[in-house]
């Protein structure tokens, strides 16, 4: 496997034998244990699993928020292990768009200014930042809400603003942590459809952590984790089928492929 940054059909994300453990109080917590996977450019994938399975830790590693204790994390051709905290911040600003469960918009900024926040880290002038933010908001269907503050937007609209903020820098990778976790069913489906649209229309690679079984209808692949391990083979198939059935789907065969 050649982690060459997603060019020529190669994977955008390559994770090799990653472990992540940390000390919490007197406990040595093994959040991830020998996880290896790859995610192709332009794919929409989900990390799924029960609480404490390590899926959020894995997402943090993929997005450059955290660094592994052992192993290697390549994203867009960059080995993230070697980067300092500030280098990682710079790298994230350039390559990653982040979406959070609780939207996490700045309440004192309107939708346009919230979306334009990551652009403050670029060399764009004010007019260019404004224009790009408006374009991003148009993509997520909020061109009528440019001057609205977060408190005047619904949960679904706030999450759309957050998605616009994630795509405004045109990143290689969009990372979403439980993006539907705080939304009702209708808005959750709309957000999942929007993420899918980003993948389909703009070729974005989208990685998402979710408990939401509806997500399986939108993603290309789902990685199942449990107790810090990436499930493989029959274990992964069983996990996928269970989630699919919980979502009211048909047979296990109709579920998305559990990837390795």
């Amino acid at each position: 496997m050649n982690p060459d940054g997603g060019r020529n059909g190669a994977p955008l994300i390559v994770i090799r034998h990653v472990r992540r453990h940390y000390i919490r109080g007197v406990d040595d917590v093994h959040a991830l244990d020998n996880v290896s996977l790859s995610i192709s450019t332009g794919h929409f994938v989900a990390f799924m699993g029960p609480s404490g399975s390590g899926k959020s830790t894995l997402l943090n590693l993929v997005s450059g928020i955290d660094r592994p204790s052992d192993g290697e994390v390549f994203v867009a051709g960059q080995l993230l292990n070697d980067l300092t905290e500030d280098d990682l911040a710079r790298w994230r600003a350039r390559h990653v768009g982040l979406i959070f469960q609780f939207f996490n918009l700045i309440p004192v900024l309107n939708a346009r200014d919230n979306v334009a926040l990551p652009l403050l880290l670029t060399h764009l002038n004010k007019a260019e930042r404004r224009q790009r933010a408006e374009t991003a908001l148009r993509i997520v269907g909020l061109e009528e809400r440019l001057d609205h503050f977060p408190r005047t937007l619904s949960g679904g609209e706030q999450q759309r603003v957050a998605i616009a903020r994630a795509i405004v820098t045109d990143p290689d990778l969009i990372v979403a942590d439980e993006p539907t976790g705080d939304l009702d069913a209708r808005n959750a489906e709309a957000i999942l459809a929007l993420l899918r649209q980003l993948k389909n229309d703009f070729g974005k690679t989208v990685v998402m952590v979710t408990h939401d079984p509806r997500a399986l209808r939108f993603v290309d692949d789902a990685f199942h984790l449990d107790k810090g391990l990436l499930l493989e083979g029959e274990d992964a198939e069983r996990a996928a089928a269970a989630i699919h059935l919980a979502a009211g789907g048909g047979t296990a065969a109709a579920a998305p492929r559990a990837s390795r």
Partner: protein
Amino acid sequence: MKYLGLIRANLGRNKLRGALTGGAIMLAVVLVCLLLTMPAGLNAILDYVSNNTRISVHNKGGLVYQMPSSFTRKVRQVDGVAAAMAQTWFGGAFEEAGRVTFPNFAVEPEQVAAVYPDYPIAPEQLADFQRYRDGAIVGRQVMHKYGWKIGDRITLRSTVWPVNLDLRIVGEIASERAPMLWLSREYLDQALQAAGRSGLGTVGIIWVRASDPNRVNAIMRQIDEMSRNSDSETACETEKSFMSNFFGSLQGFVTIILIVTGLVALCIVFIAANTASMGVRERAGEIAVLKAIGFNRRVIFGTLLAEAVALSAVAGGAGVLAAIGLTRALRVFAGWSDTLGPLGSFIVTAPVIVQGVFLSLFVGMLAGVVPSYGAARKSVVQTLHEVF
């Protein structure tokens, strides 16, 4: 500059808290500026008089002892003396309480212009001072304090001499540094004779102006030499030295003022630091998100610190302006304070403004640096774990 919008938006986040903190800083700056006007007023007087060539000639035994009036004529004949003016403390009380509420002296009107060429007095007013026996020239602060204007007639009841003098105000010393009243020695002399006294045969201080700054020391030596072994030996000193000695007792008060000023500044640092800490704590989630989307430690630290400094700077600027307005009002309505003396000049000088502005910036920096550093220092994953 591109972060200004974010900083401005965050400053308006909690308007009540921002206003209260800003108000506290503003009041502190007002108080500090007011306190600093006191030593600044004293320093301004001393700096002002350090540039002139005036010499004070008074009895070696102290200011309560007099010298014969005839000594003034001898002093005028000393080589290098441009002019000399006899001055005697009148100690006149204007208010019914009978206290002396501003310094007032009997002087020689025809010598004023030559000895005090630096005092802004209109020539026609000086001429009137010489023309009218009962004329008086009054400092601007005293004029303001009592609402006097030129042409007004007033009566001063002396607490030193057994006379009351009716005076007509013929001129104003248009300066904040001369809060006093001058009347004519001749008028006092005649009034004393009319009261059955022998007249004004003595003088308290002879003010001398040297024609050349380089001759000042020689003149002082010569005058003191002239009076040696007489009944009234003199002690000459420069005007700056005279003023320093005269106001020497105020130096202790000035020290206390400076200590209080420092404590006020420290208190306001704690208040502002508490506000900054609360603001950072409340926004921990937002700061975590900013870090996650790529804001590095420098930017986080800089924007948070800029918020604290901006709030302090705005409040400090308002405080300085308020202090200027307040001191103007104090000068108009309170005038010369016989208790505070030159400390009560209440003039917000340029150094006081600079100190007020620097204080507010210093408060902002000091108050903001710890919480800003704390927020910036943590790793993004640690911050996210703490808040989500």
